[in-house]
C-alpha cells in the first residue's frame, strides 16, 4: 500500500505541472489587464508603463510562468498586484472558511445521502423509493445561487431562524451548508442505493438469509458495509468539487473564503491571486482523487490484491 501511495504521489507531479501551465495560460489569455485596475484618472501612459514593468507584466509569458512556478516551489505564491498583499496571506485567511463550509457540507450530504440511499434501497420500487429519488434529483438540479436565496427568504426573512449572511456566528453556517449539501445528497443517495441493491444480490447475503439472520441486520451490518466502498470513493472525489462549488454560495451568503477572494480577483484580473486560488482548487481535486483510490484499495481486498 505504501509503495502504491508513493507511486501515485510521484505521478501527481507531472499532473501538477500540466495543471499549472493550463491555469497560467488561461488566466493570461483571457482578455483583461490588472494594470487597468491600478491606473486612476490622472495617471498617464508613463505610469502604465512603469506599473507594467514593476510587476513584470512586460516580460514574455514563458518567463512570467517560470518565475511564478519557481517561486511557487519555494512556497512563495507572489504578491497580489491589485491587492498589494502576499497571496499566501490572502489565501491563508480565506481557506479556513472555505474548508469549514465545504467540510460540513460534505458531512451533511454524506450522512443524509447515505441514509436516504439506504431507505430507497430497502424500499426499492415503492413510493418511498420514488419519492426519495425524485426529491434528491430535484434538489441536485436547483442552481445553488437560487437555492441559497430561497433558503434565506424562508429561514431568515420569514422564520428568522438564521442570519441572512456573514460568518459572525456558527448559525451563519447552517444555510450555506444546506445550500451546498442538498446538491450533494443526490449523488451520494443514488450511489448508495445502487450499491446496496447490488450488494444485497450477492451470494453471501443469500447465505446470511439462509442462516436466519434478521433481514434488517443483514442490510445494515453486512450489505451497507459492502456498499460503502464505492460511496467512500465518490466522497473522496467530491472533496475538490465541493470546495469549488462553494464559490457562488460564499458570494450569496457574504462569507469570506476562496470563492469570494477568487471572484474579486477575477474581476480585477489580479493574476497571482486567481492563479493561487485555481491551483488550490485543482490540487484539492487531485488529492481527493488520490485519496479515493487509496481508500478503495484499503477497503477492498480485491483491489489490494490486484495492486500487489
Amino acid at each position, binding site marked *: 500500500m505504501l509503495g502504491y501511495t508513493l507511486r501515485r504521489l510521484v505521478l501527481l507531479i507531472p499532473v501538477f505541472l500540466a495543471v499549472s501551465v493550463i491555469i497560467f495560460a488561461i488566466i493570461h489569455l483571457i482578455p483583461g489587464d490588472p494594470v487597468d485596475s491600478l491606473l486612476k484618472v490622472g495617471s498617464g501612459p508613463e505610469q502604465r508603463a512603469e506599473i507594467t514593468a514593476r510587476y513584470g507584466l512586460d516580460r514574455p509569458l514563458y518567463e512570467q510562468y517560470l518565475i511564478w512556478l519557481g517561486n511557487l516551489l519555494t512556497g512563495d505564491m507572489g504578491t497580489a498586484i491589485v491587492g498589494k498583499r502576499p497571496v499566501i496571506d490572502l489565501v491563508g485567511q480565506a481557506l479556513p472558511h472555505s474548508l469549514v463550509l465545504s467540510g460540513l457540507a460534505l458531512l451533511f450530504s454524506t450522512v443524509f445521502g447515505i441514509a436516504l440511499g439506504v431507505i430507497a434501497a430497502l424500499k426499492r420500487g415503492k413510493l418511498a423509493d420514488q419519492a426519495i429519488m425524485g426529491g434528491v434529483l430535484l434538489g441536485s438540479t436547483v442552481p445553488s445561487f437560487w437555492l441559497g436565496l430561497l433558503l434565506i427568504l424562508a429561514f431568515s426573512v420569514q422564520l428568522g431562524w438564521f442570519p441572512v449572511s456573514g460568518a459572525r456566528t456558527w448559525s451563519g453556517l447552517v444555510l450555506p451548508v444546506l445550500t451546498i449539501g442538498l446538491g450533494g445528497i443526490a449523488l451520494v443517495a443514488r450511489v448508495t442505493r445502487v450499491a446496496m441493491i447490488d450488494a444485497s444480490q450477492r451470494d453471501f447475503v443469500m447465505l446470511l438469509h439462509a442462516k436466519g439472520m434478521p433481514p434488517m441486520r443483514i442490510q445494515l451490518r453486512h450489505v451497507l458495509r459492502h456498499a460503502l466502498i464505492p460511496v467512500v470513493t465518490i466522497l473522496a472525489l467530491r472533496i475538490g468539487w465541493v470546495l469549488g462549488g462553494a464559490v457562488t454560495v460564499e458570494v450569496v451568503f*457574504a462569507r469570506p473564503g476562496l470563492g469570494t477572494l477568487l471572484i474579486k480577483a477575477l474581476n480585477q484580473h489580479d493574476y497571482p491571486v486567481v492563479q493561487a486560488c485555481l491551483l488550490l482548487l485543482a490540487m484539492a481535486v487531485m488529492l481527493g482523487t488520490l485519496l479515493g483510490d487509496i481508500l478503495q484499495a484499503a477497503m477492498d481486498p480485491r483491489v489490494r490484491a490486484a495492486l500487489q
Partner: protein
Amino acid sequence: MSISFRRAALATSVSFAALILAAPAVFAQEAIFVLQQDEVGVPTYNVVTNGNTNVGARLIYDTLTVQDADQSFHPGLADSWVEAPDGMSWEFTLKTGVTFHNGEPFNATAAAAWLALYAATDNSYMTQSIDKIEAVGESTLKLTMKNPDPNLLYNLSSSFMGVVEPKAFAALGENYGVTEAVGTGPFKLESFAIGSETVLARNDDYTWGSSLAVNKGPAKIAKITLREIAEESTAFLELKTGGVDMLLGVPTDFLGELAKEPNITALTLPGQEVVYMPFNVTKAPFDDINVRHAAALAVNQQEILDSVYGGVGSVANQFLISALPESKVAPEYLISYDPAKAAELLDAAGWTMGADGVRAKDGVPLSITLWTQSDSVFRRLTEVIQAEFKAVGIASEITTFDSSMIRDQYKTGEQQAAVRSYYWNNADIVDWFFGGDRLGYPNISMFNDPKAEELRVKAMSGSANGTERTANFVAYHEYVLSQFPMAPIYQPVQNIGYNKDRLVLPAEIHGTRIGAATILDTTVVE
C-alpha cells in the same frame, strides 16, 4: 403524550437556540453598515500603496482638505492654505493638538514624512507635481511644485491621501493596513477580516472634526462594523431583517422594495456617476460628425430616466457630473433629445429613410453594433436606446460583454458605440476618456483631435490656479461636446438605505459621500 411533549420541547429548544445564535450582535451605540458594491474586497487599509479604499479609510484617516457635495474644498487637518500667485508653491497651516491613534503628534514633520511615502508607489501620481516637501516650523507645511497643480486640493482630499502615521507605517511593513492602521481619524481600526468585515472603535481623543461636521468631538457611535456583502439581494435582505443598520449603496432597482419597509428609509446624495454612450469616431458611420450628432440627439434622456431608472436621478446633457463648475458649459453645447433635428442631420449626411424604417446610403443600411456590459440595468438601458435609434432610422444590434472583460474589448478599437458609465467627480475625466494618448481604453471614442489636444494640455497643465483651471476645462469640455464623440444619457444619485428606528442621520449630509462628517453627526437610537 409523552413523545409529543418531548418533541415539542425539543423543537422549542432548537428554535430558541437558533434564535439566540441568529441574533445580530448589535448593542447600544454600535452600528453595522454594509459597504457599497465597488468598495467590497479592499485587502488593506494601507492607503499609500493600495489602489482601492472604502469608507473605513475615510473614518480611520483624516485628510488635509475635505470636499463638500458641491465640490468645494474646506479645512481638514490643514486649517488654511495659501497658493503662490504663480502656483509654484503652497503653504498649509496645520491644526495643532492633533494626535495619531498611537499617540504620536501630528505636525508638519509628520505630514512631510507622510507625503514622502507616496514616491515609487502605484499612487505616486497623486504627488507627482510636488518637487519639494518642507516642514516650516511646527505647523506649517510648504510644498514647492514642479509645475502649478490647481488639482492639488482635490488630491489632498482624496481617501487615497488619508494622513498615515509614518513611524507605524515603516515599522509594520507589509502588515500596515491589515493588522494595524494608524491615522488621526474619528475611528480606530479594531479588527479587519479581508472580504468579510472591519470593526472600528471610536477615537475618544478626537476633538478636531472637519469643518463639514457639526460635531467636532468624538463620534456618538462607539463601534461601527463595516460588512462586505457582494450580493445586492443579500445586503437588502439583511437591512430588511434588521441584521444591519445601513446600506451605503442601494441599487435604484431596490428603491421600490425599500419603500415598502416601514422602518427603512432611503437617503439620496448627489451622484458622482455619469452614464453615456461613446461613439468610435474612427469607425463608419460615426466617422461622420453629422451621424454622431444625430445619434446623440436620438437619445431620449428623459424617457430613459423615467423608464429605466424610475425617475430617480437626472438626465445628463453634458459629460460631467452637474456639481462640477466645469460642467457649466454654454447652452449651445448641451446635448438634448431632438429627433426632428436628428432626422434632418441624417438626411443632410445622405442617409435616406428606407421602406423598412432603416436609413441607407449608396445601398448600405445605417446599421451599427451597440456594445454593452452584462449587468441587467445596462442591458435594459441599451435596449431602450436601440428602440430610440430605430425611431430615427438607425438599426442596431446589441453585443453584450462580461463587465470585467469589456475594457479589453475596447482596446481592440472595434467598437462603434457602447453604453457605459464612469464614476468620478473631477473634470480631468474629460482628459481621461478623450485624451489622444489613451486610444482604445480609456479613450473608447478613439477621439484624437488636434484642437482638443491643445485645449487638453492647457486644461491639464497650463493653469496656474483653480479659476484658470476651471475656465480651461470648460473650454476643453465645450470643444469635446461640439465634436460629439459621445452622447450623455443619465446621471444617477447615490442611494443610501438605513433603519430609521436605529439611526438618526444629520439633517444635512456634507461631503461627496457618506464619510467622517456624516458619521460624526450620526446617533444610534438606544
